[in-house]
C-alpha cells in the first residue's frame, strides 16, 4: 500500500479513556492524523489534557461537532451507546468513515482478522463491538471453522481502573453487543457473555475466557486454529496471548490475555488496547480502500 502524502483527517468523539488513547494512537499512524478531539463539557479533564498534548479540541459534544460541519475523513465515536445511536444519522450524513467504539448496535460489526477485508469493501460505518468481542471472536471464529459450535460463553475480566464511567453505565449493552457479534461471526446458536471488573491491586491484565461446546471438537485442529488466529491478531495488537487451550470431550476452553503495548495506557489495560488497535487498524484499511477507489471522502 502506498502511503498518501498527506495523512487523512480524523476526529475523535469522547475524551474518556478510550478517546484519549485513540488520539494518542493516531499520533503514531502513518495514514491518519488526529485533527480534532471532541468532549462534552468545556471543563472536562480529558479535553484539558488533550489541549495540553497539542491537539485541537472542541466542547459541546457530538451536537456541536455535527453543527460545526467541519469535514473529516474518519470519525471515531468513543462517547456512549445511547448518544451514539441518537446521532447516528447526522454522523452518517457527513460521508466520513465512521468507527463506533460504543457498544451500540449500529454499523457493520467488524473484527479485523475475521471479516475486516470484506467489511472495508462493503461499508463505511463500522462497529467495533466490545473489548471482549475483539479478544474472543478471532479465536472463536477460527475454532468454529473446524467444528460445529452449539454454545459459546465469553467471560471477560477487566481491571476496575481500566474502565471509565461509560463502560460502567453500558454493561448491559456490552453484554448484548458481544453476544450478538459472537452469534453473527461464529454461527453458534446459543451465546452467553459475562463481564467482571476486578478491584485487585496491583491491577490484573485483561483476561477473556472462552468456552465452546461442540460435539465434533477435535483437539489437534482446534489448537492449530487458535494459535494461528492469535498470530494474526498480534500483527496489530502485540500484547494478545493465548495462555491456555484445552479440549475435553465436546468442551473447548481457551484462556486469553491482552496486555497493552502503548506508552500512554498502563500495561494491564489490554481491554482498551485491543479495541483501539482494532479500530485504528480498521480505519486505516477503510481509508486505504477508499483511496484506492479514488473516493477519499474529502479531497483537500
Amino acid at each position, binding site marked *: 500500500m502506498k502511503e498518501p502524502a498527506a495523512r487523512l483527517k480524523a476526529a475523535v468523539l469522547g475524551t474518556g479513556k478510550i478517546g484519549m488513547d485513540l488520539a494518542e494512537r493516531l499520533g503514531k499512524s502513518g495514514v491518519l492524523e488526529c485533527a480534532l478531539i471532541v468532549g462534552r463539557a468545556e471543563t472536562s479533564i480529558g479535553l484539558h489534557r488533550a489541549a495540553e498534548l497539542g491537539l485541537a479540541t472542541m466542547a459541546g459534544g457530538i451536537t456541536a461537532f455535527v453543527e460545526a460541519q467541519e469535514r473529516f475523513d474518519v470519525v471515531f465515536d468513543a462517547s456512549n451507546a445511547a448518544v451514539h445511536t441518537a446521532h447516528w444519522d447526522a454522523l452518517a450524513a457527513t460521508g466520513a468513515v465512521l468507527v463506533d467504539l460504543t457498544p451500540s448496535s449500529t454499523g457493520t460489526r467488524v473484527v479485523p482478522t475475521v471479516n475486516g477485508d470484506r467489511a472495508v469493501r462493503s461499508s463505511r460505518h463500522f462497529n467495533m463491538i466490545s473489548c471482549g468481542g475483539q479478544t474472543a471472536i478471532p479465536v472463536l471464529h477460527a475454532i468454529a471453522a473446524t467444528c460445529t459450535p452449539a454454545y459459546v*460463553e465469553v*467471560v471477560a475480566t477487566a481491571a476496575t481502573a481500566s474502565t471509565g464511567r461509560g463502560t*460502567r*453505565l453500558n454493561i*448491559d449493552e456490552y*453484554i448484548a453487543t458481544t453476544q450478538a457479534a459472537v452469534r453473527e461471526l461464529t454461527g453458534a446458536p446459543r451465546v452467553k457473555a*459475562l463481564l*467482571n471488573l476486578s*478491584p485487585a491491586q496491583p491491577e490484573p491484565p485483561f483476561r477473556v475466557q472462552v468456552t465452546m461446546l461442540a460435539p465434533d471438537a477435535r483437539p489437534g485442529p482446534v489448537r492449530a486454529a487458535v494459535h494461528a488466529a492469535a498470530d494474526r491478531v498480534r500483527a496489530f495488537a502485540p500484547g494478545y496471548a493465548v495462555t491456555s487451550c484445552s479440549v475435553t470431550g465436546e468442551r473447548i476452553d481457551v484462556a486469553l490475555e491482552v496486555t497493552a503495548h502503548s506508552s500512554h495506557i498502563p500495561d494491564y489495560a489490554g481491554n482498551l488496547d485491543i479495541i483501539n488497535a482494532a479500530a485504528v487498524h480498521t480505519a486505516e484499511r477503510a481509508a486505504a480502500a477508499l483511496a484506492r477507489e479514488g473516493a477519499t471522502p474529502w479531497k483537500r
Partner: protein
Amino acid sequence: MEEVTESKVVLYDPTLRDGHHAVRHQLDADQLRAYATAADQAGVPVVEVGHGNGLGASSHQLGQAKLSDDEMLTVVRESLTRSRMGVFLAPGWGTGADLAGAVARGADVVRIAAHCSQADVAERHLGEARAAGVEAQAVLLMSHMIGPAELAEQCALLISYGAQAVGIMDSAGHYLPTDVTTRITAVTRAVGEVPVIFHGHNNLGLAMANSLAAVTAGATVIDGCARGFGAGAGNAQLEVLAAVLQRTGHPTGIDLHQLLAAADIAEARLMSAPPTIDSISLVSGLAGVFSGFKLPVLEAARRGGVDPVDVLFELGRRQVVAGQEDQIPAVVRQLQRT
C-alpha cells in the same frame, strides 16, 4: 420498612439463593416450594431466590442452575403469602432485562450487587429497580478488600443512585468482629436514616459474632440462611440469629417455633449435611477468597492432582473476586508447573 423501632432488626433470608452455592445451583421446584412455604409461615420478612450468583448468572463459568430464573421465581412467588420475594442482580452477570423479568414475576425486593469499590456499576440498575416500583437495595461484595472510609463512601454513592438500603457482604468470611464494627460504624455514619445491611459467612466461625457486632454498630438488615445453608462454610445461621437477636433485645417479628420448623425442613430437604468449617473453608476465609469457590476449587484440584489449600492461597494472592472462576484452572496449571 414499616414500624421501625430503634432496636428492630429485619432478617433477610437468602437460603434459596446463597445456599445454591453449596449444591451447585441444583435445587428443584419441590425443594424451593418446601422451604419458601415454611419460611413464609414463620414470617421471615424477605425470602431471596435464584442462582447463587443471582439473576442471569447460570453459565459454565458460574455454574449452570437446574431451573431457569423464571421457574425459580414462579415457584417461590406461589409459595409466599406474606413474606416478600427478593432477587439478587450483579451487573455483568445479570442485565436490566433479567431485572424486568424478575419484577414481572413478582419480585418485591431487588438487591443490586457490586464488588467493594465499584458502587457505580450499580447505578443504572438501581435506577431501573426504583422505576419499576420495587424496593431497591444495594450491597458491596468482597467488602474486606477495602477499608471503612472507602466502604462508607461507596455506600453513600449507592444511596445517591437510589438505593433504599445499603450494606456490605463478607463474601469470603474473612472478617473479625472488630473489622465489622469499624466498617458498619463508618457506613451508618455516612448514610443517615437509610437501613444498613450486613451479610456474614462462617469461614472463621465468626458469622454470628460478626452479625451481632453489625447490629450493635447500627445495621438493621441482617442476612441469615437456614442451618447456615450457603457458600463455603455457610452463612450466618438464620434461626440462631433470630434467637440471639431476641435475647439481645432486637425483635425480628419472626415466630421462632415456626422458624425452627423451617430450618428443620431446610436441613431435611435442601442439603445432604449442614455446612461445616472444613479445612478448605477455613483456608478460604483466611485467604480472603469468595466462599462460592469452594466446590469448583475442590474439583479442579482433585482433577489436577494439586493441593486445594495451595490453590486457595494463590487465588487469595491474586485477589480474585466472584465471577473469576476461570482463575481456578489457571492457578491449578501454575501449581502443576512448579
